[in-house]
């Protein structure tokens, strides 16, 4: 078991290295002159050149990459040309917001997806099959940003139940900073009213993000559960008189979850990179918005920082899924 874990973690390192190289290449290959904007409309040629040196843009590409890599490992992820501040600082501020959104969305999707999938599989008949299929296809076809706008229109503008955007009421003081995720921080501080407020603001954007993974997880759970239910060992277990609750937990869930786990891992990565538009609709200050602003200003250090962060988190999270896989399904460990 330990051997398996160590092996998988070691394999992570060349992947991360490759990621950094790919991200750097993409960043430097993009055309445009970002130094010009950062210098301002009234800057002289000397000032522009000085700024280019400050950002190391006058050295050959290979040297730039080496500096970039060593910088990354030292915590220097470059500076934003716009704010002239360190990118890592910006990421520390914006990443938790996106993580909170993605985790909340995945929580909704996983919990309800598994439940609905099990339900649909257990109660199988033609009518339910078709409607689950249609509804899940409709759900993954619905553009997240349109859904977000509709939710905003109905719940915030017409009914007035939710606020239009943001993460927390303006005047209230947020809970003390631990993770940067307001819901978790309020729980850690034992502050229930803040927790409820943060949840209220989180609800709509999380719902908008969760629909797509919810639909897919439902379908996967339904399919793999149906497969499991048909297996011989299920028949044996039922004949032996094992109670339904234990049946569900020990046999059905464990076996049906394996393929769903892969989807969960993939969706986590896709959602991380896919919050851009929902963050825009709900004014959610996460890395999606941060990246969008950087793109509009051709500010490549923040763009690279965001892309690298998401790639790294994706790879790490999938590693965790793989390890979890190994725990659930011993066959994988020995392979």
């Amino acid at each position, binding site marked *: 078991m330990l051997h398996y874990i160590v092996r998988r973690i070691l394999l992570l390192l060349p992947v991360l290295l490759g990621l950094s190289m790919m991200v750097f290449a993409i960043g430097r290959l993009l055309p*445009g002159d970002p130094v010009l904007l950062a210098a301002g409309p009234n800057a002289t040629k000397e000032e522009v050149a000085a700024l280019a040196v400050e950002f190391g843009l006058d050295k050959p590409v290979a040297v730039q990459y080496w500096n970039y890599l060593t910088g990354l490992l030292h915590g220097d992820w470059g500076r934003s040309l716009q704010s002239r501040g360190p990118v890592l600082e910006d990421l520390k501020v914006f990443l938790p917001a996106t993580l909170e959104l993605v985790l909340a969305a995945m929580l909704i999707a996983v919990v309800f997806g598994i439940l609905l999938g099990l339900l649909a599989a257990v109660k199988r008949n033609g009518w339910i099959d078709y409607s689950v299929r249609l509804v899940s*296809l409709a759900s993954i*076809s619905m*553009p997240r940003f*349109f859904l977000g706008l509709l939710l905003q229109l109905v719940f915030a503008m017409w009914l007035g139940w939710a606020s239009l955007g943001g993460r927390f009421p303006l005047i209230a003081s947020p809970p003390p900073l631990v993770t940067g995720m307001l819901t978790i921080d309020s729980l850690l501080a034992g502050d229930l009213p803040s927790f409820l407020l943060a949840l209220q603001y989180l609800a709509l954007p999380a719902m908008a993000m969760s629909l797509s993974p919810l639909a897919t997880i439902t379908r996967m759970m339904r399919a793999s559960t149906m497969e499991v239910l048909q297996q011989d060992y299920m028949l044996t277990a039922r004949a032996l008189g094992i109670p339904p609750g234990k049946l569900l937990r020990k046999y059905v869930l464990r076996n049906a979850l394996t393929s769903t786990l892969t989807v969960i891992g993939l969706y986590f990565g896709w959602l991380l990179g896919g919050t851009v538009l929902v963050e825009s609709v709900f004014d959610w200050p996460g890395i999606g918005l941060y*990246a969008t602003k950087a793109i509009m200003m051709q500010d490549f250090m923040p*763009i690279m920082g*965001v892309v690298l962060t998401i790639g790294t988190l994706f790879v790490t999270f999938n590693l965790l899924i793989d390890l979890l896989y190994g725990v659930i399904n011993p066959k994988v460990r020995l392979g």
Partner: protein
Amino acid sequence: MNESQAWARAYYRLRQNWLSLVGLVLVVFLLVVALAGNQLAPYPEHISGSVDTAMRFQAPSSAHWMGTNEMGQDVLSLVLGGARISLFGGLAVVVLAAVVGTMVGAVAGYFGGWTDEVLMRLADLKLTLPGLILAMAVAAALGAGTMNMVLAISLSWWPGFARLVRGEVISKREEVYVLAARALGAGSVRIMWRHILPNILSPIIVKMSLDVGFAVLTVASLGFVGIGVKPPTPEWGLMLSTARGFLPDYWWTAIFPGLAIFLTVLSFNLLGDGLRDVLDPRSRR
């Protein structure tokens, strides 16, 4: 069985699957609209940029079924006009990604060894990076324009095809007919083109059909942020983004483009789902 019998079987199975038939009908309808949009539109001049500022923000009526927008343009005409960009953009992305991905995957799968390792590592790495953000960054850097947008999105799309094709090529590589062709002295390219590729076509087509919907969604997403087409070309994502500021009062400027995106993506997904059931029964759920 021979080819035509296989297709007949496939068509029979498709007919049994009524949801997919609905998808097929809708997709055909959308293609017709995309091709003939300018003729079908009640106010075609609005699609090419004419404005009528005296008629701004008219609610849906008999003269304008979907109302007018902030420049007095007929929303129905713009939605019809936008179909062309969205559909052809989505299709172009998928076709380009499929072509590039197939080439890469075929080379990797057939030759194996280092080529395979390097190409697949590249593809895997690409898959971990956020596709939408990268597409936005590249499209923004290349500048406005449909072709730039298609190129930018395809750059994020090809790895999926590469992996699929590589797997298929590896499984077909050791087939008898391939060994026979090699024994007869056929070159690699000829083998790939004439023997392997025709036999792996159906999973590629399945993936293409499943991906078109999401490609259309990505085109609209870029439009929503403001990257992609140039005015006066109507694009559903851009229309939705502009209309955000007019909610809730002038709701028709947002609802109709949004529904258009939704229905288009849904149609392609229905069709793709059905095609998958039909052409690739192994993966039927």
